[in-house]
């Protein structure tokens, strides 16, 4: 930890700076992963849900019409 790399910059200090870099890279990877892998699934699930709701609605309306016609 106390080995000096450049002048007074020791290995420990350099590792501390590298940590900030790693965090930045991790954040970027996370955002990319979510945008490319997870968001499409979420959109599809949401669309599916809406589809189901619409079908239920239609089924209800159709039943109602039949009832009125009778």
């Amino acid at each position, binding site marked *: *930890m*106390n080995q000096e790399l*450049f*002048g*007074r*910059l*020791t290995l*420990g*200090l350099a590792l*501390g700076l590298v*940590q*900030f870099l790693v*965090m*930045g890279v*991790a*954040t970027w990877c*996370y*955002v990319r992963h*979510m945008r490319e892998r*997870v968001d499409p*699934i*979420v959109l599809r*699930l*949401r669309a599916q*849900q809406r589809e189901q709701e619409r079908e239920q609605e239609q089924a209800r309306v159709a039943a109602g019409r039949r009832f009125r016609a009778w």
Partner: protein
Amino acid sequence: MVTQSAAIADQFSLRLTFILFVSVVVVTLFTALLTAPQRDEISEFYLGNRDMSPLRNGLAMCGDYVSAATLLGSTGLVALNGYDGLLYLGGTMVAWMMVLLMVAEPLRNSGKFTLGDTLALRLPHGQRSVRLALALCTLAVCLLYLVAQLVGSIALLTQFIGDPSPTTRAMCVVVIGSMVVVYAAIGGMPGATFIQVVKAVMLIAGVAITAVMVLQHFSWNIDRLLSTASDNSALGDRFLEPGLRYGGTTTNKLDFFSLQLAIVLGLAALPHIMMRLLAPRTNRVLRGSVVWAVGLVGFVCLAAGVLGLGATAIVGRENIAQVDPRGDAAILLLAHKLGGAVLEALLSSLAFITLLAVAAGLTLAAASSLAHDLYSEVIRKGKAKQTEELGVARLAAVVIGVMGMLLALLSWGTSTATLAFLAFAIAASAILPAIVYSLFWRGFTTRGALLSLYGGLLCSVLLVVFSPIISSQPNSVYPDADFAWFPLQNPGIVSIPAGFLLGWLGSLAGGRGQAVTSTDAFAEFEVRALVGPDQR
């Protein structure tokens, strides 16, 4: 007890600080009154403006996180302890990564107003007892953190006028506390958000200006900054080596580990941060907000490191320790030396506003937990009207503010940073297990939730009572008594695993029947945590 620090500010800087502070307070108070929820809509009071841009949300999150303890305390730690202080700044960053990667999005998708709503969705059976337990834990964490902020205001006042008399002390706490109550009770979340954004902008600007001045002083040569700092620390090379504060005995090392654990895990469970996560209407905005917050907090941490090293290099470690042995005066001394009275006044008014803003956020978080979880769902069983709940929330803010003031006056001698990190430790051991298990573990049951909430709270509080903070040391609350059999300053290393273990054991002991129904609830919850509430 509070140290005999001398006044470091001259008359001019004192007046300038006062004027700056009062003008910011007046502006933000008026805005809080103007933007206060008018139609008595409960969601506006709890969440504020839900359509804010990611940048503004990120600023508010950064503002909520960076308290006066962080601003003054961390620069002081770096100035006095060199490398060990810098390690502390690194922990802060990891904490924000935890929020971004683990809790932010599922929590927003499954939540409504408070964390209680998320847990109620996950554990529909016996949600009332879970809400009650959660409200108690939230109250404990918020009160402790609020007391830390109010005690910090006394410590800050000490920097200006020397040791205050008991009357001045009481005045200071009551004035700051009443402002906090006004922001939280009348302004609600919109008011708290506005002061948070104003504060964050001021903070980032102030810290950036001072850091640039430090770097300019050393003509942008980091090596010269480091070598001057270690020369002026009177410690030589040891200043930039690990172990200055947390080295030596095993207790010291364990204490450091415990503190880091509490910082890293506690943030993701702090109630006022969680309320911010629930505010954005869409997931995309939330993600952008937290990324902004990570970036801004990272910048503040890097700048705080530069400021701390700069303080040692320019002011000298001994001069800082002479004014305040805890090092809280480091940044103000540095500002005085670099930019004269104007910069010092800017930074010290900033510290007061920081106190005020964080305290307002905390009061609001505790008040909404009490009104929504305890009153509306437990006492009135979900039948309370919106106006009624709003009234209770406002009343709760007043009650919490008054309780905070009283406790602060009783414990004014304790160190702000210690109190703040205790709040982190309690949040991490009581609230975090419940969040993590309900988001990620299928077998989590109501019994597990209750056991981890109450057990984590009890375990961390008991360990604090038997720690050197309360007794046996010259700077503890009861220096004459000695019942401190727990050697560490921070209970995190024991109480956080205990909280997780209790949650696990409680869920296993629940029996098969409960586990099956909880699996069904988990499947539903998982979809909701991914897709989010129904909205277009």
